[in-house]
């Protein structure tokens, strides 16, 4: 079944012919070898067509050999494990790998020429934008176009079953890129005693050496690589990360790196992963480095000629990679097109592998250097001063037209020669991979001799922690790269204060090169806006004509042109075509490339999966859950939980057959008529003490703290300096210089930070100590007319009657045999006690309370009943009835504001805005129909009517059905509300008629407050 691999060479390559691997593409079975990528295995099997382009649906083939690949974008795996948008050039072949082409509508092989033309007409530059500006009648066309061209692959429909993990690491020197420069930089750093991390996004180290037949010190270059890797592997403080792509260079030399973890660590380089078991699919490394050496090499550029997207047009370096690294032949009859010397090496590689090279088309009138001479020696025809003017063939290159040119890109040419071929290897020069350098804030210089942007160092180097080396630093020959890597490594360790190890630079052969020629748009038989398409960005179908159109339509800035033409928007992020695009833009603007500049380089360098970003932070590990000491008991009682910040609190305690409303009604009536118990442990608790604690708290709280007698409790609020209510709670004076403060559940951490801020920064002369006790103490609220009887039944060593233990006091007691602080405070308006007890006693106390309460028909109650009970009393919840724009005056709490002292926020209450008469004030609302429970957040309006916009005069903040009053109640903030009692307003409900409501006092139940004070 598995077909032979017709394009596989018999010998060579870094593949393991003893390990055949079966895989499939679009359901068709193939075989490759261990060491293949999906791309090389497809080429081995003669698969030329791997997708259709995004907008124009043109057939496309494999172009590159690595991260720059724009066309062969695959969906890999099936079901929950499927991954979209992976370049076939970076997918390591594995047994039973299942891949699908992602952009083949309706299928890769099925060609609809008419549709292509149709799209070609409407989908020019800026089509995204124009779509929304044309007349409505055009929409049908656009909708069809956009639907057909949406997206690449598909996201999995079910949760990802694989594990991902994050790893934090520190190192002295991080080397990004394991080619010749990176390897020698890592070697000198590691030998000098630095802690080194060497990362490369390939499955083995070697970089460009994997793709050629270079020699170092007179031996095959890969022998040298193997020796360096073996030595690094033995150095304990050196971590080797093959399959590790450095994604981002962030502030202060913090770098992120995605590592693909392999289940079968057999390939070269994998033995280095001795410290970590491969149990995750991918691992995100978060690395803080002291020095960073960027040695990520360079990307070969294509050339912009007519029909340069036909399958079989490939980067010359990719062709060499496929021959040397994977032992596959991408074609049988080749033509090479270049403006520089490097592609001559590809021509020699092809010839050496038995491919007929029909011609090397060199745009340079003077031709190439030493390699060109070698090509002639082996009999390859070299056509100098010529260009490829067009390509024939649709699903596969069939031939090329060749023309002489004058050196002017914009002067039309006449084709004179036609050559048949099935492979066109192209080189338009090299662009250093400057992405990380630029992310780190490094500037770029335009190198006019090498025609590329390269890292600028001179003025910045002393301040920077990073350095570039090798091809990524604009070095071209292997010798230069090795020397530059050695320099960068040596300088890095010297800056760390280490003695650099002495290493002699290895020697490589180096051919004399002729300089590159500036050739960005290749001239054609017709001018640039009328000739067949000359692609700049293959993935987004951006052409030379599109960029020129953008300029004609007024775009000048490279960032704008990028967004208008989608140049560099794809998964390859412009690694292939961006510089060509900038050159075409520069020509259209009459500027130099240096003047036009590049677009901003941002993380991430290559695409990364969401699973890797999320790491372990999924499911139960997404956010910590805080549970009270009584949590298990609540769960056993069947209470649904309400999530309050990180806390899980019991929401209500349903009995058999009860829903939320029935349970809450029963719980509330139990508190009003007998007794209920609630877990209030999540309240923030702060112990405050010290000789200056009174002075301190006087400045924080609005009331007269100093007047509180020992054992007294008080309701306190704290304001922001803007006068707005920030937090509230009960405080108790436990000693002369000792207070116990409670805060809201959600505001506990903020409140403590707020107190510390003032104590540490503004009033450091005050001696006050603050300690959080939120977790150490639990709080059980026992509320209702029978609460006193219940405590007496539990056995209490202090008298609980009104005169001995009055409302708003605190007492230390032994209750049910356990030491506890009892607070006579009430958040329900009933006689109530809050039992504050060490958390390890809490569960025992809770059980004893419920046991003893049985004779009173006690009801445990949750947050919902707590809300209803407090709303019946008009007690606010900070954050629900307030929103950061509400003053205590708005809430009717003037009685809490001391006139005798300053406190935080006091001055702001006198600002004109806080004195406005029409500020929203807290009121109660009653629905006239006695039935409608207004949704919280409902807007209030003055009158019904059809005139829009309707002015809004307030909104509902809390709203419940009150069981003990047997009608709905609501709290609201209403403009000038306190003066409007008795007025009728309307609640605007979506989808129904406005409901009339009456403005009333916010205290619905026991307005005189007699029940809590018995």
């Amino acid at each position: 079944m598995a077909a032979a691999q017709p394009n596989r060479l018999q010998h060579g390559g870094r593949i393991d012919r003893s390990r055949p691997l079966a895989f499939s593409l679009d359901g068709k079975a193939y075989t490759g070898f261990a060491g293949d990528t999906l791309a090389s295995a497809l080429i081995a099997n003669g698969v030329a067509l791997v997708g259709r382009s995004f907008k124009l649906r043109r057939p496309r083939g494999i172009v590159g050999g690595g991260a720059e690949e724009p066309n062969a974008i695959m969906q890999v795996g099936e079901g929950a494990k499927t991954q979209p948008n992976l370049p076939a050039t970076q997918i390591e072949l594995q047994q039973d790998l299942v891949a699908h082409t992602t952009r083949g509508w309706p299928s890769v092989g099925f060609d609809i020429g008419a549709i292509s033309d149709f799209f070609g007409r409407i989908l020019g530059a800026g089509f995204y934008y124009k779509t929304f500006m044309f007349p409505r009648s055009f929409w049908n066309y656009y909708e069809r176009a956009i639907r057909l061209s949406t997206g690449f692959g598909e996201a999995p429909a079910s949760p990802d079953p694989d594990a991902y993990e994050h790893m934090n690491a520190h190192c002295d020197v991080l080397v990004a890129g394991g080619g010749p420069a990176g390897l020698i930089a890592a070697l000198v750093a590691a030998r000098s005693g630095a802690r080194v991390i060497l990362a490369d996004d390939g499955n083995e180290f070697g970089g460009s050496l994997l793709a050629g037949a270079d020699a170092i010190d007179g031996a095959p270059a890969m022998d040298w690589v193997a020796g360096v890797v073996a030595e690094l592997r033995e150095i304990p403080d050196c971590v080797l990360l093959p399959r590790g792509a450095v994604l981002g260079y962030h502030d202060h030399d913090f770098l992120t790196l995605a590592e693909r973890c392999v289940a079968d660590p057999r390939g070269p380089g994998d033995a280095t992963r001795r410290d970590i078991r491969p149990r995750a699919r991918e691992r995100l490394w978060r690395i803080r480095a002291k020095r960073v050496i960027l040695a990520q090499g360079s990307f070969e550029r294509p050339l912009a000629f007519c029909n340069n997207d036909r399958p079989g047009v490939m980067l010359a370096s990719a062709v060499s990679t496929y021959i040397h690294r994977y032992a596959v032949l991408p074609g049988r009859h080749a033509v090479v097109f270049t403006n520089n010397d490097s592609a001559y090496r590809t021509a020699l590689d092809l010839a050496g592998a038995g491919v007929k090279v029909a011609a090397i088309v060199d745009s340079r009138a003077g031709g190439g250097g030493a390699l060109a001479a070698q090509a002639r020696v082996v009999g390859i025809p070299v056509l100098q001063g010529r260009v490829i003017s067009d390509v024939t063939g649709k699903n596969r290159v069939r031939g090329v037209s060749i023309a002489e040119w004058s050196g002017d890109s914009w002067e039309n040419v006449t084709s004179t020669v036609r050559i048949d071929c099935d492979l066109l290897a192209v080189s338009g020069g090299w662009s250093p991979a400057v992405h990380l350098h630029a992310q780190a804030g490094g500037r770029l210089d335009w190198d006019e001799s090498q025609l590329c942007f390269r890292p600028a160092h001179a003025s910045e180097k002393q301040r920077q922690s990073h350095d570039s080396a090798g091809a990524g630093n604009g070095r071209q020959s292997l010798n230069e790269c090795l020397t530059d890597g050695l320099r960068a490594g040596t300088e890095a360790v010297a800056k760390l204060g280490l003695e650099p190890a002495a290493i002699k630079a290895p020697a490589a052969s180096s051919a004399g090169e002729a300089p590159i020629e500036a050739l960005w748009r290749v001239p054609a038989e017709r001018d640039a806006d009328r000739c067949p398409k000359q692609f700049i960005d293959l993935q987004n179908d951006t052409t030379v004509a599109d960029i020129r159109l953008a300029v004609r339509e007024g775009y000048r800035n490279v960032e704008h042109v990028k967004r208008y033409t989608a140049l560099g928007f794809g998964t390859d992020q412009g690694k292939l075509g961006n510089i060509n695009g900038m050159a075409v833009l520069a020509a259209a603007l009459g500027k130099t490339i240096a003047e036009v500049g590049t677009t901003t380089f941002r993380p991430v360098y290559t695409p990364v999966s969401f699973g890797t970003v999320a790491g372990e932070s999924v499911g139960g590990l997404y956010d910590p859950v805080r549970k009270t000491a009584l949590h298990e008991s609540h769960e056993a009682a069947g209470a649904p939980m309400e999530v309050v910040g990180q806390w899980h609190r019991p929401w209500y305690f349903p009995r058999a057959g009860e829903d939320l409303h029935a349970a809450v009604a029963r719980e509330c009536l139990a508190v009003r008529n007998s007794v209920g118990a609630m877990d209030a442990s999540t309240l923030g608790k702060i112990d405050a003490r010290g000789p200056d604690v009174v002075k301190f708290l006087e400045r924080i709280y609005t009331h007269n703290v100093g007047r509180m007698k020992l054992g007294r409790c008080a309701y306190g609020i704290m304001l922001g300096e803007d006068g707005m209510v920030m937090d509230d709670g009960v405080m108790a004076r436990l000693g002369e210089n000792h207070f116990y403060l409670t805060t809201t559940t959600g505001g506990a951490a903020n409140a403590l930070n707020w107190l510390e801020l003032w104590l540490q920064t503004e009033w450091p002369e005050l001696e006050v100590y603050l300690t959080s006790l939120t977790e150490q103490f639990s709080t059980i609220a026992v509320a209702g007319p029978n609460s006193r009887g219940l405590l007496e039944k539990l056995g209490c060593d202090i008298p609980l009657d009104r005169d001995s233990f009055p409302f708003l006091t605190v007492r230390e007691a032994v209750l049910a045999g356990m030491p506890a602080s009892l607070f006579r405070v009430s958040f329900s308006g009933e006689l109530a006690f809050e039992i504050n007890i060490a958390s390890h006693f809490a569960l025992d106390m809770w059980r004893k309370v419920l046991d003893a309460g049985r004779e009173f028909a006690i009801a445990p109650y949750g947050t919902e009943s707590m809300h209803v009970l407090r709303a019946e009393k008009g007690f606010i919840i900070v954050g629900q009835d307030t929103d950061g724009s509400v003053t205590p005056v708005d809430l009717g709490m003037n009685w809490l504001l001391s006139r005798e002292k300053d406190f935080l926020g006091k001055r702001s209450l006198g600002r004109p805005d806080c004195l406005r008469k029409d500020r929203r004030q807290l009121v109660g609302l009653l629905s006239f129909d006695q039935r409608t429970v207004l949704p919280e957040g409902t807007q209030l309006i003055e009158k019904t009517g059809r005139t829009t916009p309707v002015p809004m005069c307030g909104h509902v903040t809390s709203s419940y059905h009150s069981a003990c009053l047997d009608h709905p109640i609501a709290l609201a903030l209403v403009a000038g509300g306190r003066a409007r009692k008795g007025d009728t307003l309307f609640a605007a409900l979506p989808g129904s008629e406005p409901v009339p409501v009456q403005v009333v006092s916010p205290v619905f139940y026991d307005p005189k407050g007699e029940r809590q004070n018995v």
Partner: protein
Amino acid sequence: MLLITCPWCGPRAETEFSYGGEADIARPLDPDALSDAEWADYLFYRGNPRGPHREKWNHVHGCRRWFGVERDTVSYRIARSFMLSAGGPGADADAGPESGGDANTEQED
């Protein structure tokens, strides 16, 4: 991610800290004596310098102390961290040479 030197704990990752805005904003001793405009100036107005900026940070997931940092708002380079009040350990602690960095912080697409 910034590397911030807490004067008490040494260099730590930014995720351990919370930001507290501009430093050196003293609370007026007698707020009632201030005009509305003067109070608003204290309350709302902050410098927004391009370059060195003295700011407050709290080692909220560490020692919980507030301290000052001098940070360049362009390069994000931290020149030093310092105590907000005299007398504590490590007053005017040097942030050390490792705190620098010119990383690009733009987050736009």
